[in-house]
């Protein structure tokens, strides 16, 4: 099985999908000849031609809107928003049009499309290249929200997203494009080659949407995470020597509530880790769901580990990032008798 980093896995997913389906078109800023600023679309224009893979103007609103028109025509756009921080000019089209079209046309015009976008910090991107806006999309009925955390899942989830009949917002945790991240920014980066999930099958396979992965089994507490924070949380529970069960949500909407419920009922304790700011973040939704569904199994209050309620500050990146220290304190709190 080939070993791939997340970028190669995503690139491979595009190729597999586009070879199988002539109706898939890929466009976005700098994604054509150059292959994208993170190189996810490298080589696609060469293989599939300029009418299926092309550069778009710096106009996220226009990119999403034209994708709506294309989906209405009956082809399948897989578009890239260069950074999640740039997605806001397209937000009206995503919220008012993409998400609601199937509903408002009583099913006559569904909007199957994938909106890919790198998100998250830890790369010294400052305020405008580090944000985690997933909760702005999980809040919108009609959208599915997917976040992979490994090369294997990235390819399988992207293929599933492309084949899904509903619009999918596909957030790619750019900090772990090239290697998993344990939260210790001062240590050398580990490449994906050392990680078992860098074994990416050739050809077509999917990781189904709406299914979480239990990436570490345990009995003492349940950790819910997605994207970069899966790896940071795994490292933290390892360092604390905790018998923790770590769940990688993989899809935020629709959420795999059954896996979460099963785990928290077993452990009686729950910690949720997200990189996004705290207030009204997706962790708040998770916390409410755990409380509603597992209340009488809880031994301690549900804990959230999050970014701060500030913009992502450039120089203070590691004071902002919910790293090992913040996790350690929260783990101690949730485990206190």
């Amino acid at each position, binding site marked *: 099985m080939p070993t791939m980093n997340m970028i190669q896995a995503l690139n491979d997913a595009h190729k597999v999908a586009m070879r199988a389906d002539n109706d898939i078109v890929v466009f976005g800023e700098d994604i054509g000849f150059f292959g994208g600023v993170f190189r996810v679309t490298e080589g696609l224009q060469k293989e599939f031609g300029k009418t299926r893979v092309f550069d778009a103007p710096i106009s996220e609103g226009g990119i999403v809107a034209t994708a709506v028109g294309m989906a209405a025509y009956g082809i399948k756009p897989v578009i890239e928003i260069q950074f999640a921080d740039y997605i806001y000019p397209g937000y009206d089209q995503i919220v008012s049009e993409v998400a609601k079209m199937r509903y408002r046309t009583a099913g006559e015009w569904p909007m199957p499309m994938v909106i890919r976008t790198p998100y998250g910090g830890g790369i010294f991107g400052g305020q405008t290249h580090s944000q985690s806006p997933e909760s702005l999309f999980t809040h919108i009925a009609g959208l599915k929200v997917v976040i992979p955390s490994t090369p294997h899942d990235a390819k399988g989830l992207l293929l599933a997203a492309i084949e899904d009949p509903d619009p999918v917002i596909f957030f790619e945790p750019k900090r772990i494009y090239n290697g998993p991240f344990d939260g210790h920014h001062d240590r050398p980066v580990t490449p994906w080659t050392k990680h078992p999930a860098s074994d990416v099958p050739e050809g077509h396979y999917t990781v189904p949407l709406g299914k979480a992965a239990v990436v570490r089994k345990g009995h003492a507490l349940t950790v819910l995470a997605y994207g970069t924070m899966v790896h940071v949380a795994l490292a933290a529970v390892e360092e604390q020597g905790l018998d923790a069960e770590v769940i990688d949500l993989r899809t935020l909407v629709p959420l795999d509530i059954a896996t979460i419920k099963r785990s928290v009922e077993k452990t*009686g304790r729950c910690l949720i880790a997200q990189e996004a700011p705290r207030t009204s973040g997706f962790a708040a939704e998770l916390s409410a769901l755990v409380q509603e569904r597992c209340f*009488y*199994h*809880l*031994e*301690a209050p549900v804990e959230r580990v999050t970014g701060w309620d500030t913009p992502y500050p450039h120089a203070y990146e590691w004071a902002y990032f919910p790293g090992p220290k913040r996790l350690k304190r929260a783990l101690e709190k949730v485990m206190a008798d």
Partner: protein
Amino acid sequence: MANYEFKLPDIGEGIAEAEIVAWHVKVGDVIGEDQQIADMMTDKATVEMESPVAGKVVQLAGEVGDQVPIGSVLAVIETDGAGADVSLPASGQDGQETTAEGERTDTVAMADGAVAPTAAQEQAMPSVGEERASEPTPVRPEPVEGLSSTKQPQERHSASTSSSRTAGDAKVLASPAVRARARDLGIDLAQVRTASDRIRHSDLDAYLLYNGGSVCGRGLAPRQDETIKVVGLRRKIAENMAEAKRRIPHFTLVEEFDVTDLEDTRAMMNRDRGTNPKLTLLPFLITAISKALPDWPMLNATYDDDASVITRHGALNLGMATQTPNGLMVPVIRDAQAMSVWQLATEALRLAEAARTGKAAREELSGSSITLSSLGPMGGITSTPVINRPEVAIIAVNKVEEKVVVLDGEIEVRKRMNLSLSCDHRVVDGWDAANFMQTLKGYIENPIRLLSA
């Protein structure tokens, strides 16, 4: 003649009231459809109100300058009742009454405890235990079994009535998990002491240790013995059952059915059911039975064992074992083979209700050719139903459960249900029963086949 109430519509997207600027008609005027009645001013606009109907003005809402709330009557117009437009009842109450009727139907559907084995009901376990206990349950002659917190004797119970219990809990700190465990054990947390800031599992353990078995047993006053005369329907049931068991050599065959697809179909049909009653599994099972029986007519029969004559029945007159306040009754759905699942659902509801309220006619309680018995979610995993003489077969429905099964080498979670079939071995062979069950399976596990004509 009819009076049409023209109610002031919401003419401006969410306004609350409008001012009468001018009347263009007065009481007594005869007006035409679309004729201008009044000018109304809102904070957004002044709009002309036109009459949706023709007729005579019999009442107007107020004077120029008055504020009229949206939705209140602006004018009452006497119309020619016979020629009334179909749309006239629009702003009246008819629509709501229709809905109210629909709701009543729904309520009946929900009250049908006989057959509604859904997974959801089975799942709702610990947290609803208390609520269930508070539902009025018929007094039964059996001694109180079990010792759950909900059936504590008087003096103990008074110490844990909801109000005092709440007060006690308010002072006690404990995690939700500790509370749940205490509740399951019937322990009043107010009685548990702790050395820390809140009660922990270890405190509960200590409490259990020192209070031993008395946690559950203490305070259970002996019940008075009761003598109950077996009369009326009860005696009739007793005699019938004894006679059935005495005369009929029963054998019972149990088969497991995969109802995953059927449950999906049922859920889908319920979603779009409109004004129909909610479908339980019962009408689907009856349909399956009616389709399977023609091939195995020896089961849809009555046996006069005094005369040694078997009558194989052409029609399916399905007896429906129904629990009533007086005991078991068996109302009969006649010609069930001729009914759709919707009709069966409606008829089953009607008959069950009639039996429960004692309004069932005599002929509605006799003449069945085979009987179906179901306790819904309480249906157990298997049963040995007693044949309803002079019939020769009875089918009991056991509960639907999610089970792990192996399908084509893959492990899957499926919804499974057992049916238990008892037959009169004098006239029905095991081979017949087994074949009938397999035929039934072909329908129950394939809803498209089941529901196609």
